[in-house]
């Protein structure tokens, strides 16, 4: 299951929205990234919640697609961590 989070719901998205895609499984990461790129998204990949937090420290995408079930920090914990610093 994936959770999709976007800041400023209702805001216009840019022509090529920046997506941070987070999934611990390489197959799912690869396939979702290919499908999103095919639809015009600029995709940055992260393979764990901790890696996603590192990326988000100094970069803000338009959309974050998070796998909910991951070892270590799961999708919900990753989301809570980011919300606590916004």
């Amino acid at each position, binding site marked *: 299951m994936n959770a999709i989070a976007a800041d400023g719901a209702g805001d216009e998205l840019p022509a090529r929205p920046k997506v941070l895609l987070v999934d*611990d*499984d390489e*197959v*799912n990461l690869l*396939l979702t990234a*290919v*499908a999103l790129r095919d639809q015009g998204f600029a995709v940055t990949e992260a393979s764990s919640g901790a890696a996603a937090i590192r990326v988000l420290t100094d970069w803000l995408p338009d959309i974050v697609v998070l796998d909910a*079930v991951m070892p270590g920090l799961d999708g919900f914990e990753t989301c809570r961590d980011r919300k606590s610093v916004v």
Partner: protein
Amino acid sequence: MSHAFPSVATPDPRAVDPAEPWPAGFDAVALRRLRELDTSGEGRLVVRVLRAFEGSLLRLVPQLVAARAAGEAAGIRHVAHTLKSSSASVGALALASICSELEAVLRDGTGAPLAPLLDAFEAEAQAVLRGLRPWLEAAA
């Protein structure tokens, strides 16, 4: 005047796709759908995905075996959850079905016996790997 280069061949609709036959035991419809995502037209996406899938199996199956030996339901559930989705995506449908059943039994706590499902998982995962290896070697 003789031609130094062969003329461009018109694709023969009866020609066999070079990617086929697909790995033994994999669903052709799922793999053709995957290939359609490959906008490069070089057909390498399917190879990359199946190689990644093989890597996932080689990493996750021993994790499940270890979790089973230790009686750790959370470890079994994590492997089942991860492989349920990726197996379905690549057309390893029997494995996806077993993973889905395993995850449901663990999530719902129905008390259904796990051992037959875990045995079926291990046997099917090995069958999938046996189907994948020669195909990936040929595609290398």
